[in-house]
């Protein structure tokens, strides 16, 4: 199939490459594409068309059309005409039921024509309705192009890189290269992006093969470069995307053997392949006619050259046998041929410019659309700007004789001239609507081959001109892009505490809380709560947000942010605080300890740390108070030791007085524990005597190990998040976001003592005053079940058959032996012992309202 070696051919005949097509070995050479090697092996049919399953062969040979889409090593929709051969790859045809030669779905071409006109999916196969499941199964099977392997997962890695360029040149043709080198010579930093294989250019960084996907707002140009997505910001964008050869519309214009001029040039010049035996050329420009040189060089006889500029024929129709071209009839003259080169002129590839904001206008003389009014910093050069030789404006379509073959406007979606005429007859007179109805320009070529011909046909059928029809909106992506590239690398950000590995070693079940990984429990959540009540437990609370707020105005600053008062706190004391927005909504809660006259240590919830810091900084951006806010969340680890033996354990590890007088409830004290500088906070989220130790993160594992070692004889046991949730529920301590929502405020949540409404101002004060004035609509209360059933969180509370509230938390307390929970109820139900009903599993279960903590209601154990 190859003719003798010629100078400047792309292939290296001394380096054969072997790959497999449907399991059969195919030989090619270094420099071949998969497409050229298959062509050399005698293959002419490369695919079956989308709807009619007609045979299709190489047409553009430049990666523009849909005719050579194949599956390469499991990746669907690879354009094999531009994909270089690689040793050992497995190539398969797609969109066929059977083989390329015997595709069972080709019956659609022969018999289903009347049932599959344009828009058929809206009108056929909808009756009888009960058959729809059958139709759907069939349609789902045959629709779409290519198949993804569901089981392969992510087999490739995709990366994103942010880049800058002074000058970004898109397109490496003659004009692009000239622009790049002259900009480089002027001392600019230049990047050139080109679809073809890599080459060197003096002073220019060449990215190839790579494709600019679009031009977005702010001059952002994403470039697809084989697994890497470069997000370019360029000071100047030079678009040199050239022009696209346009096909002609005549019956049989999709037959195997019909080529655009570039295909012939590449087959002959680059790969020394002979396109066929007898050729006819029909062209609207000189470039098309000039391929006669290539054909003669390849030994193909040029039977006829038809120049549309001088003597355009009235009728052209191609005839095929088994999908392959065998003759073309021109004005009644039958010309036998197996090769037909068609050229309808070249349309500037303006799409990227239109995306950037250029206006597109029609030039009647050459019959092309040209970009105009380019935005600043964007430049068009070369063919895309209209620098090209004159050409004839071809007829919108050529007719043949009766019984002619189909005439395709869009070969991607198999839309014929009849379909377009029918759409117009049905009233789809706007090009944008017609596009969506007929799907012309919506296939893999994205309008490269069908946009202008369809506009021309539209103009003729609507008896107007192309300028009046106009173009459809150009949108990214201009080049096909794999979704993996857009998705980038698979990231699942997770935060771990410095004690994380100790939890894993102890066999903890880990869970997500926001971005944190935390132990759910180590063995049995219920038993872990019992060891806190009976002996001592330890939990890693390093995830708490930890801030230092410091400065002469620290106290007034916090008093403006929180409903609480802090200025009156003694040094070394702690107060529970709740943050509210100006709408009165509870945002976060935590403890505020006064470490110095002007220094406060603020803790936040685990998931609220970032929000709280941003909130603090935001308000201070307005107030400009003299405070510094320092985030120590990651710098400090924290553990909570809780239970009757907690004091004994702490006493063994520190020299300070740990008696109730030495460190009383809500005291904050700096001390060395196990030789590590710690801030000891005596607080009791879980309801037992407890100490929170905050210390530098690197000591995490050491402190954890030391506590477990020295507490072994006291029965110490680590406990996870789930037991902590049971323990806090026994104390009716709220969890922000679990027990509160966007309507919750501190008054109705049962914490009126927090809001110091006598303060002049604080964020949320006015909303709370409003709540107080309007009266409560609902209140947060505790409840216990009478029958021990744990109701679902979010479960409905009913009273006399009507909704009266909702459950926010519910657990079985092993210590109390009862099912307990918290709920929002109507104010009249917020009374100790009030009977409520909760919907559980379709029925209702009885419960009683509790206003005081279930465990240690007076806080004696907490303060002991």
């Amino acid at each position, binding site marked *: 199939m190859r003719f003798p070696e010629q100078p400047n051919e792309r292939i290296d005949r001394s380096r054969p490459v072997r790959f497999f097509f449907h399991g059969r070995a195919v030989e090619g050479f270094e420099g071949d594409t998969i497409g050229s090697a298959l062509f050399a092996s005698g293959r002419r049919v490369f695919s079956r068309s989308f709807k009619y399953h007609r045979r299709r062969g190489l047409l553009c040979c430049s990666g523009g059309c849909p005719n050579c889409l194949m599956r390469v090593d499991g990746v669907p929709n690879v354009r094999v005409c531009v994909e270089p051969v690689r040793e050992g790859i497995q190539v398969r045809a797609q969109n066929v039921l059977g083989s390329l030669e015997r595709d069972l779905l080709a019956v659609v071409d022969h018999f289903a024509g009347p049932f599959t006109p344009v828009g058929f999916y809206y009108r056929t196969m909808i009756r009888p309705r009960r058959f729809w499941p059958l139709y759907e199964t069939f349609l789902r099977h045959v629709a779409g192009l290519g198949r993804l392997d569901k089981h392969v997962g992510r087999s490739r890695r995709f990366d994103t890189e942010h880049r800058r360029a002074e000058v970004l040149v898109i397109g490496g043709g003659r004009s692009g290269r000239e622009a790049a080198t002259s900009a480089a010579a002027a001392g600019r930093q230049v990047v050139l992006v080109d679809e073809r294989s890599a080459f060197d250019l003096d002073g220019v960084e060449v990215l190839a093969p790579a494709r600019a996907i679009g031009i977005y707002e*702010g001059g952002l140009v994403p470039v697809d470069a084989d697994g890497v997505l470069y997000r370019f910001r360029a000071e100047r964008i030079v678009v040199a995307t050239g022009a696209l050869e346009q096909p002609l519309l005549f019956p049989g214009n999709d037959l195997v053997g019909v080529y655009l001029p570039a295909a012939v040039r590449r087959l002959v010049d680059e790969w020394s392949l002979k396109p066929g035996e007898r050729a006819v050329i029909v062209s609207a420009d000189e470039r098309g006619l000039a391929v006669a040189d290539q054909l003669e060089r390849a030994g193909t006889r040029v039977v006829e050259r038809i120049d549309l500029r001088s003597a355009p024929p009235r009728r052209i129709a191609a005839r095929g046998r088994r999908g392959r071209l065998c003759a073309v009839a021109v004005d009644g003259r039958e010309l036998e041929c197996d090769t037909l080169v068609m050229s309808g002129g070249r349309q500037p590839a303006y799409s990227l410019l239109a995306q950037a904001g250029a206006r597109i206008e029609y030039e009647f003389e050459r019959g092309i659309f040209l970009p105009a009014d380019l935005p600043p910093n964007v430049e068009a050069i070369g063919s895309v700007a209209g620098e090209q030789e004159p050409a004839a404006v071809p007829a919108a379509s050529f007719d043949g004789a009766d019984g002619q073959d189909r005439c395709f406007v869009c070969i991607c979606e198999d839309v014929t001239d009849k379909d377009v005429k029918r759409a117009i007859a049905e009233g789809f007179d706007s090009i944008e609507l017609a596009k969506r109805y007929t799907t012309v320009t919506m296939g893999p070529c994205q309008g490269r081959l069908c946009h202008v011909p369809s506009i021309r046909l539209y103009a003729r059928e609507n008896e107007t001109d192309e300028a009046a029809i106009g173009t459809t909106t150009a949108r990214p992506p201009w080049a096909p892009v794999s979704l993996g590239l857009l998705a980038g690398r698979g990231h699942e950000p997770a935060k771990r505490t410095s004690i994380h590995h100790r939890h894993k070693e102890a066999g903890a079940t880990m869970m997500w809380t926001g971005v944190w990984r935390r132990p759910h429990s180590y063995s049995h959540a219920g038993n872990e709560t019992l060891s806190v009540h009976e002996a001592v437990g330890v939990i890693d609370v390093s995830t708490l947000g930890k801030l230092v707020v410091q400065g002469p105005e620290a106290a007034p600053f916090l008093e403006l942010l929180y409903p609480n008062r802090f200025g009156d706190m003694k040094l070394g004391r702690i107060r529970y605080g709740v943050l509210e927005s100006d709408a009165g909504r509870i945002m976060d809660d935590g403890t505020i300890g006064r470490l110095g006259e002007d220094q406060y240590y603020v803790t936040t919830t685990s998931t609220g740390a970032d929000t709280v810091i941003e909130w603090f900084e935001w308000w201070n*951006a307005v107030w400009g108070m003299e405070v510094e806010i320092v985030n120590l969340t990651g710098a400090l680890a924290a553990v909570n030791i809780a239970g009757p033996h907690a004091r004994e354990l702490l006493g063994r590890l520190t020299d300070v007085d740990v008696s109730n007088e030495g460190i009383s409830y809500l005291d904050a004290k700096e001390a060395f524990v196990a030789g590590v500088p710690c801030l000891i906070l005596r607080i009791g989220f879980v309801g037992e005597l407890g100490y929170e130790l905050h210390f530098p993160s690197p000591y995490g594992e050491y402190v954890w190990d030391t506590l477990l070692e020295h507490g072994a004889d006291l029965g110490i046991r680590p406990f996870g998040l789930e037991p902590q949730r049971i323990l806090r529920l026994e104390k009716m301590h709220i969890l922000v976001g679990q027990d509160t929502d966007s309507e919750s405020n501190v008054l109705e949540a049962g914490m009126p003592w927090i809001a110091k409404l006598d303060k002049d101002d604080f964020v949320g004060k006015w909303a709370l005053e409003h709540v107080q004035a309007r009266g409560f609509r609902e209140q947060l209360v505790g409840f216990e079940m009478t029958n021990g059933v744990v109701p679902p969180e979010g479960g409905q509370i009913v009273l006399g058959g009507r909704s009266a509230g909702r459950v926010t938390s519910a657990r079985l307390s092993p210590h109390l032996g009862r099912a307990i929970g918290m709920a929002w109820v109507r104010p009249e139900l917020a009374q100790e012992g009030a009977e409520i009903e909760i919907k559980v599993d379709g029925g209702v279960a009885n419960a009683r309202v509790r206003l005081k903590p279930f465990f240690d209601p007076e806080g004696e154990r907490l303060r002991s």
Partner: protein
Amino acid sequence: MSFLLPCPNCGPRDVNEFAYAGEVTHRPRITPSQRELSSYVYFRRNVAGVQREWWYHRFGCELWFLAERDTRTNEVLKTELPLRDEAEAPTTQ
């Protein structure tokens, strides 16, 4: 959105580095009526045109600043630090 936003500290940066926090609101200086409170907390002008709005350089220098941006074109006319006496409050709900 892929426009560039000039951070007063860092200069023009990709908008994805920032958190948008809504148009500026004006916090009442004295106890507001219920209507004034609702208007401050819940109501926004939502202009099609130049809007004064809050931005936070979340993946950068962590600065809160104000921008004047045309919401129709994403053209940023200027960015600046808050004028502290204007009581332009965080957008709070």
